[in-house]
């Protein structure tokens, strides 16, 4: 599929002015920073200790002591959500890193070389796309056993073809441009042009896709933890908390409501941020996902 890229022609000051006038961007940024801050604070302080089980306090409804209530082991839900944020962010971030780090060079290389190399890489892409993230997670778990690291690998592998496709489509739209021909006439090679001209011009596209995959990564991690393939107890994770809540929906609905809200708000923030960046830097660019 061909793609149109409108190259932004803006100075930094202009971009910043537009950024802070963009509602999606500002709200998204605030939410994202808030979530990151909560995760960081959890290293230093949480309302109560999430590793200590106080059975006497089990499944207490929200109160001024436990704002979001407690779970079936008497652990404070708010504290668990705070600690769980670390896990979600870390898994999604590393998975995006894997996807970008491998996918972008592959996509850029495929676009630069074209021909058989391109065709072969795209076929491998199709192959990976045929395995939904959860399916590859299941296979990886079947081999290595469940755990946060395996969740990262599973989500990361699935991210590779996504970034490869975006990078390739973006690069293919830039390659025929006259400034690339000019660079070639100036004797610059494929690699140098890719680094000097192609990558900076598709950076926005990648940034936007990055926030989208980050959000999807958080959802995927929650899904994997929920079915027991992600982070293992006692490490708190949002998906795992929902699993524990499931059988107690009647007696302790707060166990399900608050971790779910945490996921929704985080993903919402990231998506708004991505929308905002896309709007600011590439007003006409099409969001693909």
């Amino acid at each position, binding site marked *: 599929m061909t793609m149109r890229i409108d190259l932004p*022609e*803006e100075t930094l000051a202009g971009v910043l002015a537009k950024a802070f006038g963009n509602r999606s961007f500002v709200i998204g940024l605030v939410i994202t920073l808030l979530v990151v801050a909560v995760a960081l604070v959890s290293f230093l302080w949480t309302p109560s200790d999430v590793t200590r089980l106080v059975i006497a306090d089990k499944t207490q409804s929200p109160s001024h002591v436990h704002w979001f209530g407690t779970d079936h082991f008497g652990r404070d839900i708010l504290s668990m959500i705070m600690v769980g944020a670390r896990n979600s962010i870390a898994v999604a971030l590393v998975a995006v890193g894997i996807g970008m780090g491998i996918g972008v060079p592959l996509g850029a290389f495929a676009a630069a070389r074209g021909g058989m190399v391109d065709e072969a890489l795209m076929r491998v892409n199709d192959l990976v796309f045929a395995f939904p993230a959860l399916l590859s997670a299941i296979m990886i778990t079947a081999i290595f056993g469940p755990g946060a690291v395996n969740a990262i690998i599973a989500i990361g592998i699935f991210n590779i073809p996504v970034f490869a496709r975006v990078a390739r489509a973006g690069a293919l739209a830039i390659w025929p441009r006259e*400034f690339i*021909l*000019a660079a070639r*006439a*100036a004797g*610059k090679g494929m690699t140098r042009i890719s680094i000097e001209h192609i990558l*900076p011009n598709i950076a926005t596209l990648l940034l936007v896709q990055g926030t989208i995959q980050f959000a999807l990564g958080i959802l995927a991690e929650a899904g994997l933890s929920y079915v027991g393939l992600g982070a293992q107890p006692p490490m708190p994770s949002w998906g795992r908390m929902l699993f524990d809540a499931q059988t107690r929906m009647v007696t302790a609905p707060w166990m399900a409501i608050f971790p779910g809200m945490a996921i929704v708000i985080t993903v919402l923030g990231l998506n708004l941020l991505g929308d905002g960046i896309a709007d600011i830097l590439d007003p006409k660019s099409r969001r693909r996902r």
Partner: protein
Amino acid sequence: MSLLEIENLSLAIGGTPILKGVDLAIAPGEVVGLVGESGSGKSMTALTIMRLLPYLARAEGRVAFDGIDILGATEDQMCALRGDDIGMVFQEPMTALNPVKTIGEQVAEGIRWHTRANRAEAEDRARKILDRVGLPEAKFPLSRYPHELSGGQRQRVVIAIACALKPKLLIADEPTTALDVVLQAQILDLLRDLVRENRMGLLLISHDLAVVTEMADRLTILSHGEVTEAGDTARTLSEQQHPYTRELALASMHVPARPKPHLAGSAKPLLEVEGVGRDYPGRRISLFRPAQPISAVDDVSLTIEPAQSVALVGRSGCGKSTLARMILALDKPTTGTIRFRGEAITGKPESALRPARRDMQVVFQDPYGSFDPRQKVEKLVAEPLHLLERQPAKAERREMVAHALHEVGLGPRDMDKYPHEFSGGQRQRLSIARAIITRPKLVVADEPVSALDVSIRAQILDLFAELNQKLGIAYLFITHDLTVARAFADEVLVMHEGKIVERGRAAEVLDHPRSEPAQALVSAMPDLHRAIARRLQEQG
């Protein structure tokens, strides 16, 4: 009584004024030209008549069509007018048709909508009008899709849509700008005949004074949203009372001064192209038959001497850009050799091409696409410097960039700007600065002025001429525009369907073309002098 009357029309989009007090009138059967440079508000005038303005546009004044107040009409009234009494033809034929519908559907659609005819009747009428615009059913059945047609053919379909119901007024917004001169002449002929047959009024919008002069009875000149002059075409252009009119006319006919034209001599050739051909893999029609290769360039030979200026002219798609790319070693020929300064550059690895690349640079057509928007001018203009044997230090590099900028008429301060801070003409100057920074012997320029307004274009042509004189650079000018060739080429090569069909001294080829393709090009070329003379003669 006038068919269309525009009085004191003002238009603003989101608070930015676009048109200021425009007056214009068209009588039935009359051809009126609307001329102006880009951004003068020509297209917006047309869209106001159609009431197809962008969302935030606000129009004031009076627009009356056939007694109907257009600005006050309801949307239903406008829908009844559009396509029935007013037809419109647009600039870009490649994108003006819906890619997923057949041409038959698209032509018949308007007919069915307005006349409530049934499908068979509408298709019958569609067939007739398509036949009239030169797309007979035998070769172009209604079931064709737009992508199966060429640009010129698509523009005929757009004209068929606009004229299907014999409108009283036809608006043509730069209908031939995207086409080459031969197609342009054909489309203009077609429009002229259709207007005469059906006694339609025609509003012809163009940036090209020569085109408008050939077509229009009266013309209106627009500049920055204001009418600077309006009146009878021949009189307006022969008298040139308004300074802007004079400026436009002069720029349209501009020929840069070249005190010492190049004398073909015994000098060793700078560039030798010998029997070069380039095939592309064709589209596979069947899985079991190998695709027929398409020959874009076929057995081309040519030479260019130092400081010589050569124009390569031809219709779009004739292979001239492919040839240019092979000369620049950006594409590999299928057959033949190219020698630059006596050294073969074909079949060599990139590393062996460095000396050739240093002495051979390029200027492209699109002043907007030629620069990486993420880099500053200093880096952009300095890009070819990395071809030098010895890499200049930073200070020295800045010095060289400043010097190159000076040579193209820009200042050293421009170095720290981004390309978007420059106008189209300035960007083309930057493009030239980048091309000359390594002091090349040959510059290949692919349609370097065809995207520019006439006044800017005259300045850029002057700059090319000046650099040729001053630095002794040889040029290979690739163009479909014969005025550029005439302007300062020593020699003209005419290319047609991948082959060079004629070559000779510029004046000779352009005044007495021998081959058929060259004759077609020359006779199709709009010429302002000729057009004015003819108009005056007709009027006695």
